[in-house]
């Protein structure tokens, strides 16, 4: 294969560009200085401080709860949408499910903010509004993954089930679902990861009283930058790393979903 040294070197540089910043974050989480400026000495203090921060507990719990609920909702609705899009080729559903993924996030966040406040009044923003917002953008991802799985399958299985007299529910329960289950699990994991990591949409749909982990990082970066942020970041990296590994075990083709988004986008607009 053709891989000139130039190609190797430039690719290596890009990989360095990708990894060095994260390594720096991790290293400074063990630095015994309050200012993130120079190395002073090794300490685990920032982790200790982090674990005793009540606000962080609330944020972690909020994030977990939101991500679990949003992943559940989005998986159910997204699986339905994926099946519908594959089987019945509806006109508007793909447009509605996929446009939120193609637009700048801020637009979805802002429109939901106006909607929640005008529909439910001041004080409307809560955990529930964040869950709804996250579900809205996760549905599309689940639908894409499920539909991709379905379109890769032999139609004759479903026909056989029908010919054997299975009701639609039976054929779904006994044939379709077992076949798409890896895609459903992958979609759930992906929704969970997207939700727990989301900043922009949460920023607009969570009221001041609903901190999540990314919102906490934001406040810490903006206001009081201490290596506590690094410690939290390191832990969150471990967490998402873990999720990615699980997801890639369950559905190796998950990482190609971006391409699928693109195809779908083109299709829904054509």
């Amino acid at each position, binding site marked *: *294969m*053709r*891989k000139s040294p130039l*190609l190797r070197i*430039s*690719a290596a540089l*890009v*990989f360095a560009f*990708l990894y060095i*910043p*994260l390594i*720096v974050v991790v290293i400074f989480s063990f630095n015994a200085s309050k200012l*993130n*400026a120079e190395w002073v000495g090794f300490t685990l203090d920032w982790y200790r401080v982090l674990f005793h921060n009540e606000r962080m507990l609330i944020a972690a719990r909020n994030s977990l709860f939101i991500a679990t609920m949003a992943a559940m909702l989005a998986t159910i*609705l997204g699986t*339905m*949408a994926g099946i519908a899009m594959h*089987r*019945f080729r*509806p006109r508007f*559903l793909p447009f*509605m*499910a996929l*446009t*939120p993924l193609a*637009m*700048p996030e*801020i*637009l*979805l966040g*802002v*429109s939901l903010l*106006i*909607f929640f406040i*005008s529909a439910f009044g001041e004080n409307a923003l809560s955990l529930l509004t964040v869950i*709804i917002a996250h*579900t*809205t953008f996760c549905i599309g991802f689940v639908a894409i993954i499920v539909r991709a799985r379905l379109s890769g399958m032999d139609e004759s299985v479903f026909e056989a089930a*029908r010919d054997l007299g299975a*009701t*639609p529910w039976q054929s779904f329960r006994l044939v379709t679902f077992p076949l798409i289950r890896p895609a459903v699990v992958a979609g759930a994991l992906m929704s969970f990861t997207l939700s727990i*990591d989301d*900043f*922009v949409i949460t920023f*607009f749909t969570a009221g001041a009283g609903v901190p999540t982990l*990314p919102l906490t*990082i*934001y406040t810490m*970066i903006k206001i009081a930058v201490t290596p506590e942020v690094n410690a939290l*970041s390191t832990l*969150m*990296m471990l967490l*998402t*790393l873990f*999720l990615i590994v699980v997801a890639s075990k369950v559905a190796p083709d998950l*990482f190609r979903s*971006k*391409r699928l988004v*693109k195809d779908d*986008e083109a299709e829904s607009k054509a």
Partner: protein
Amino acid sequence: MSLIQATRIRGERWLKFIVSAPPFVFLLLFFLLPALIMVVASFRYPGEFGGLAPLFGDLPAGEKGLTLENYQIFFSDFVYAQIFLKSLGVAALTTLVCLVMAYPVALLIARSPKKSRDLLVLLCVLPFASNFLVRIYAWMIILGPMDLLFTRFAVIVGMVYVHLPFMILPLYTNLEKHDPTLLDAAQDLGANAWNRFWKVTFPMSLPGIFSGSVLVFIPVLGMFAIPEILGGKDDWLVGNMIKESFLGTRDWPFGSMLSMMLTIVVLGIAALSMAFAKRGMRHA
């Protein structure tokens, strides 16, 4: 028509209803309706304490109902168009840098043995598993001591860093499909390495470049966190202005108007890219 067929068709209709209706209704309520409300909000007056002024009620004229004022403000002063142009410029530059950086990586992966490709792709995606803000914060630590924090350069670095995989992945999926024998043929015909790349590989990868560019360009347009955290006093972009309207100066109608403008720009870019993609396909 037999009875069985009739039931089956009815069953199909039921199924269609059952699987389409819930996501449809959900998205109608929480995506389409909010979007429409934002369109209306862009024609309203700001409320007394922020938010929106009431549409009806016994307020004096000029404080309720609908108005074109927000759009008039936008077109009355060049600064607003200027900030859109600046954002487009930053998005274009980010896309270009992403392309230059993503190309060697995508090419390297595409030309690696099949077995190691998945691992290399995973290596590209992995940093993006860390939170978006963490990745920006990392650059804050690095650029701070170098006196490069709060500059346009820092903004571009942050933007590139956050959006790079959106360029690498589509490029790679395109390059992966290329037939290596074409390059052999070019070599046999006496083309040097540069010509082989420029005349064979590059033109064939245009569709990949294209989808990657759209995937980078559009999110960059709405970004506010990166200019806010890494940028300096001259680095406000459209996203910052929208954010400030909602969570700073409390002028929601104005923010809605800006969001509408951004939507129009994004749709314009999407339409343009669609047209290009179609033309490209015809040529291919």
